[in-house]
């Protein structure tokens, strides 16, 4: 018995010496900030993400705390300052933010996203050319598929529009629904879920290539062991009964369609984001 105890103690000591961060994952009281990009209203985002983060915190032993900015541009600015330990955002690829070096470790299991320029089903707008000189809504100037990609398409088509911003994706969808704008640049999946929830009929005037869905990424300062623990908990969530239940409840809030959950991912899968920024006509990104 004594030999066994000595054996175990030696192995633990060896593990701690080789992997000191293991101790911090296991016994750390540190709270790690987790930022979610403003795609929807803050109350809806809290209802969606807090149960998920609570589950991931319990499973990983890493205490995650949801942090949000008032708007997507403010979130992007905070990413540039490296304020968040973890993010769920594709603003990490923007030229101003890329130098911070957030590292992708997971993404939603959902299909890839596309940028779309949409209008209401009964709108007189039929082509991009019909938007010449009109106001077109966008979530924010920091949005990738919501602004950068569709605006690039408009510029390439020689269509000049006046952008109207709303702070987040669903904000501009609300303006579209109310008739404040005749067309809007949006994230295809957020638009689909919003339309389903709000019973809104719309037409797609233009659609981009596929881009990987918003990634979960970690700041370089976060120890690898912590990132690994969070990734494991996130990726395994839909395979556990209670995790699956939380994902389904969250999806029901925004009328999100399956599949639910997350898969492991890495930076290379987001190369077309970087290619876009190298070749875009849109200024000030």
């Amino acid at each position: 018995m004594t030999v066994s105890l000595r054996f175990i103690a030696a192995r633990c000591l060896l593990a701690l010496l080789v992997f000191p961060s293991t101790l911090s994952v296991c016994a750390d009281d540190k709270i790690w900030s987790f930022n979610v990009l403003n795609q929807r209203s803050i109350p809806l985002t809290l209802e969606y993400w807090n149960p998920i983060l609570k589950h991931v915190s319990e499973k990983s032993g890493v205490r995650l705390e949801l942090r949000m900015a008032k708007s997507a541009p403010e979130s992007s600015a905070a990413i540039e300052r490296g304020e968040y330990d973890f993010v769920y955002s594709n603003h990490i690829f923007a030229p101003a933010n890329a130098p911070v070096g957030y590292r992708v470790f997971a993404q939603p299991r959902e299909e890839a996203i596309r940028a779309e320029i949409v209008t209401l089903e009964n709108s007189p707008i039929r082509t991009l050319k019909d938007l010449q000189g009109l106001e077109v809504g966008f979530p924010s100037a920091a949005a990738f598929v919501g602004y950068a990609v569709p605006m690039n398409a408009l510029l390439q088509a020689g269509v000049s529009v006046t952008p109207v911003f709303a702070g987040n994706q669903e904000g501009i969808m609300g303006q579209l629904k109310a008739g404040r704008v005749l067309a809007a640049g949006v994230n295809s999946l957020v638009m689909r879920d919003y339309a389903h929830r709000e019973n809104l009929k719309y037409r797609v005037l233009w659609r981009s290539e596929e881009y990987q869905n918003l990634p979960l990424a970690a700041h370089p300062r976060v120890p690898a062991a912590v990132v690994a623990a969070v990734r494991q908990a996130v990726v395994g969530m839909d395979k556990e009964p209670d995790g699956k239940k939380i994902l389904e409840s969250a999806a029901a809030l925004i009328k999100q369609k399956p599949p639910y959950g997350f898969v492991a991912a890495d930076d290379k899968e987001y190369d077309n984001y970087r290619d876009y920024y190298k070749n875009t006509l849109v200024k000030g990104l």
Partner: protein
Amino acid sequence: MTTQPGWNWWLKSGLAFRLLLATGLALLLSAALMLYFSVENDAAVERNRLAETSAEQLDFLLPLLAEHAVVGDYSAIQQLLDKQVKRSNLRNIRWIDSRGNVMHAQNRDEALLAPAWFTARLAIPALEVTRNVEAGGQGYGAVFLQATPAPSINHIWQDFMHQVSYLVLGLLAVFTIIASLVKWALAPLRALEAGAEKFGRGTIPLASRRPASRKC
């Protein structure tokens, strides 16, 4: 048979006086009962209204507090508390975040217009409510709200004083009308009484009252 002095006094009082006194007492009693039940009802309504209003204010505040808390905009939270506490029924609001930091807003105390006996009779207590601020199962501190009954009490007291004024005026008017009616109604009886007295004293001769006979 001996009789009570009070009963003797009552018997010796005039009919008009007894009539007016009894009517007046009956009117006063019914007015007093009406006032009493009216005030009781108002107090019950205000007690419920205070509780309902406080609950509604918390329902309004909680999601906003969570939203500002997750963003870390404590300035917006202070502005929110400052604006909300200005509602007349609130005395103070406190929000304590998940780390124990306190944000606080206080209203000016409304002076009580009602006297102490009236306030005690109404028994509308100050209300204190605490609720946890939560969103998606995550706690964002707790909010403490203290509602004051002073505006409700003042409102009931002012209503009460108005009602007393109207009742006093009404009672005076009714009393005056009844007194006039009684005086008018009793006038023939008084004339009869006066005539009978004169007749009894013999100041009215029989002959003078006999109508003149007609000679055929």
